[in-house]
């Protein structure tokens, strides 16, 4: 393949509000190879909207425009909804920020993973159950046998996230967009789950967009980082250089993180008047 896996030029997402239309993503451009790209930035900066735009999952009245949005030679802006549905999940998948929202509340966790497996690669029922348990085990869920029979409201926050991750990885997509995939996981499971994703990137050449507000995690698991603020990309840097970031906004984010041996009485916060979010 020549050219990047994903190329985006001048992407804008607009929502109508009582005070007129507001651009929550403002003409951003970036491209992605078979690499790990991190998107960080404060809440409301447009990270999720950027991720959802790629899958054309922005619902009306939201509007998406772009000069170019090309995935592996496919012009996404021109694709019909029917063809997008075929792409979603199979070639581009997204772990949503709100896992329980995205799981079907009336199907057990095991049935849902099973369904994802069947669609990807049909197999006999007995074998299916075994593969489901294997997937749950792979995302480090204890007692997979019991958990497979639970409904989404019966699993803990971190279990829900791992179920989503398992489902999104099953089809072995070319591009995985992971929106805060591990925000509910304890640190040791978090590292294990990110290692699983990492194996797919390095082993199978998957592209990864990792959206997170956890700067340390993104620095550790990505090659390149985009910093977003108010719908724009304000800084782009190699992950290993994040601590040398220049932009005052990025520096502000770094300073706002509590440390393990924290002794500050108050954490520095960003001046919101200077960084008016939407």
């Amino acid at each position: 393949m020549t050219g990047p896996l994903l190329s985006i030029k001048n992407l804008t997402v607009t929502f109508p509000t009582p005070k007129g239309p507001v651009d929550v993503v403002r003409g951003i451009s970036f491209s992605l190879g078979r690499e790990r790209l991190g998107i960080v930035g404060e809440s409301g900066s447009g990270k999720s909207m950027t991720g959802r735009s790629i899958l054309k999952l922005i619902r009306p009245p939201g509007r998406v425009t772009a000069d170019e949005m090309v995935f592996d030679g496919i012009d996404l802006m021109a694709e019909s909804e029917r063809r997008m549905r075929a792409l979603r999940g199979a070639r581009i998948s997204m772990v949503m920020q709100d896992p329980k929202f995205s799981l079907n509340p009336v199907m057990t966790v095991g049935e849902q993973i099973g369904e994802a497996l069947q669609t990807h690669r049909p197999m006999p029922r007995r074998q299916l159950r075994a593969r489901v348990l294997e997937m749950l085990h792979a995302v480090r869920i204890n007692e997979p046998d019991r958990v497979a029979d639970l409904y989404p409201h019966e699993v803990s926050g971190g279990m829900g996230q791992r179920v989503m991750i398992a489902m999104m990885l099953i089809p072995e997509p070319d591009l995985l967009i992971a929106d805060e995939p591990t925000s509910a996981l304890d640190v040791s499971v978090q590292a294990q789950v990110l290692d699983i994703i990492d194996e797919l990137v390095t082993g199978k050449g998957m592209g990864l967009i990792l959206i997170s507000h956890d700067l340390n995690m993104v620095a550790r698991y990505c090659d390149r980082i985009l910093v977003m603020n108010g719908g724009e990309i304000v800084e782009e840097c190699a992950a290993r250089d994040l601590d040398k970031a220049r932009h005052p906004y990025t520096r502000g984010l770094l300073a706002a993180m509590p440390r393990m041996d924290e002794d500050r009485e108050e954490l520095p916060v960003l001046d919101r008047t200077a960084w008016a979010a939407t």
Partner: protein
Amino acid sequence: MNAIELTHLDIAYGPTRVVHDVSLAIAEGESFALVGESGSGKSTILKAIAGLAPDWTGEISVLGSPRAHRPDRGFAKSCQMVFQDPYGSLHPRKTVDDCLAEPLAVHGLKGRDGRVKAVLAAVGLDQRFRFRYPHQLSGGQRQRVAIARALMLEPRILLLDEPTSALDVSVQAEILNLLKKLRREQGLTYLLVTHNLPVVSFLCDRLAVMRHGRIVEVAHVEALKRGALAEPYSRELYAASGGTLQPA
């Protein structure tokens, strides 16, 4: 008087017991953290205290009175819970304003306009969000609404389930500063679930580390800061957070 006392607490969902023999005493004005493995029962303990996980044995007492097995209205005025999931915890068809005013209406309290404005300001949300619906807010904005709602009744105890895990570091810093200030000014007690050890270091006095439904260690925050937690599992969590271990 202790704010929260748990004695030999076992909690089950149907046939499955998920929390085993937990005993803890949290003093009034203390800020206490529950950390540990995903699925180890941290949220379940908070839910049992709030009356939302009815199938428990042992004792739970809050501000000196034993807890019943279900939520009750008087309890809501002294103890409020902020849920882990900022998506599920807000009603999709109620505006921020409705959601914040609701506890006031339930308890027959007045001064809606002023209180809603004040609490929005306290959690750092601009007034223009007041009449929006949850789907028009980002994840972090929703979590600020959830915290604001818990503060509406001016409770003495807050049960906080991952209150900042959906927030970016700058909003997290604001919320953490806010929680610290509220505690300083109003003597609030916190029982906080988090997987972020630096957050514990900033906000808490003590922590309990959980695994497989049990508490494996209770420690002072000083031990965390020094990297001197005692149990192997606690030390594993500490190391996975990027901390440098010291002898216990």
